[in-house]
């Protein structure tokens, strides 16, 4: 299993490998995020990897306690009744177990990856039919992800979540309503003005590296 603890305890010393990026400096990161938060996002990534590599039921139990009630809440806010949301949250966790091997912590935070599974379940529920899931199809994940890249991805996601929280109320409300399926695509502005540049560069690098490894 990937051990991230040595990085977490270094007080945000920037890992070297990813220095190519025009990143937000670690000082800004440290200001915005609490150490606890980074610790916990890394913890969830570690749990998924442990489920994937060791069929670790304890790690899965931790994931379940943290995410299942949130998925249920997310689905209820999206209009599902309690029974349906419960069932769908359970199904999401079943998929988390089976697809853990597809999780790539250099491309997505644990919460992001689990969100996409829950979102797909919600769509399936509404449609009861097949749906393309490009996230299943790619070349899987890097068998030996670089720990520094993992940390940076999880940090970047936390940072982005903070940025969304700090958006002007009106803009933030549009983002949230979209994700709770309370808006149609026609109601969203063509350019969202969301600060996604850094996270996008990071994901792009992760994809390039995967591709390079495949050659």
């Amino acid at each position, binding site marked *: 299993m990937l051990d991230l603890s040595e990085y977490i305890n270094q007080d945000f010393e920037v890992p070297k490998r990813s220095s190519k990026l025009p990143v937000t400096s670690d000082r800004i990161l440290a200001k915005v995020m609490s150490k606890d938060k980074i610790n916990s996002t890394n913890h969830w990534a570690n749990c998924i990897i442990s489920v994937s590599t060791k069929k670790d039921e304890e790690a899965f139990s931790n994931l379940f306690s943290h995410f299942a009630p949130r998925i249920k809440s997310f689905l209820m806010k999206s209009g599902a009744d309690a029974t349906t949301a419960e069932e769908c949250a359970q199904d999401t966790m079943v998929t988390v177990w089976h697809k853990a091997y597809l999780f790539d912590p250099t491309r997505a935070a644990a*919460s992001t990856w689990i969100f996409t599974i829950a979102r797909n379940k919600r769509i399936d529920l509404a449609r009861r039919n097949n749906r393309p899931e490009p996230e299943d199809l790619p070349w899987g994940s890097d068998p030996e992800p670089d720990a520094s890249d993992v940390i940076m991805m999880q940090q970047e996601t936390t940072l982005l979540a903070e940025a969304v929280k700090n958006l002007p109320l009106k803009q933030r409300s549009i983002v949230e309503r979209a994700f709770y399926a309370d808006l149609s*695509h026609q109601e969203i502005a063509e350019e969202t003005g969301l600060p996604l540049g850094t996270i996008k560069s990071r994901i792009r690098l992760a994809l390039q590296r995967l591709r390079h490894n495949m050659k």
Partner: protein
Amino acid sequence: MTKNMTIKHHLNEKLLMSYAAGILPEAFNLVVATQMSISDEARARLASFEAIGGGILEDTNKEQMSPTAFQDVLQKIKKTKPVKKYSAPTMVEGVFPEPLKKYAGDELETVKWKSIGRGVKQAILKTDNKASARLLYIPAGTAMPNHSHNGLEMTLVLKGSFHDEKDQFKRGDIEIADQDLHHKPTASDDGPCICLVASDASLKFKSIIPRLLQPFFKI
């Protein structure tokens, strides 16, 4: 055709956020998912929007699960078969990326085309009825009937290329058309152009004859 090809025409943020949030009609979803499979850049753009969803999930309050939920899930895991593992992708792939195969079949050669005149052919794909999806085959140098739109239309090039008055579109490029765009896409001279098109409204043709034919051809 390698996957990491550089594409010029991307989706706008509105459509990426809508896909990430899961609020697009199925036909549009199909186009987005197909483009993601062709271009890494497109995938990175989409994934950054999905990260917002992760933040929202992390931030939501907890809703109590049933007391037996965890045991139930372990039972379900034991009962369900593990999902099929996809083999490592190859650098060279066919015309249809994986998400499209579920709708159009595995290969271009087996598509059941219907002629709609002047060598242009189409195949309607089955999706929910909020929007329609179809494959279009346009012979080299042939123009599509001149039309405008009364809704949103997304055209993704799968093979060959086409150009309109303003630009050229190659494999992986997406053209977004709405009410304001009156255009006349024309396949390039060097070969037929095959596109995946999704639309949430029928096309309004400018001349009377195609308009009369419209109900028959479902376009």
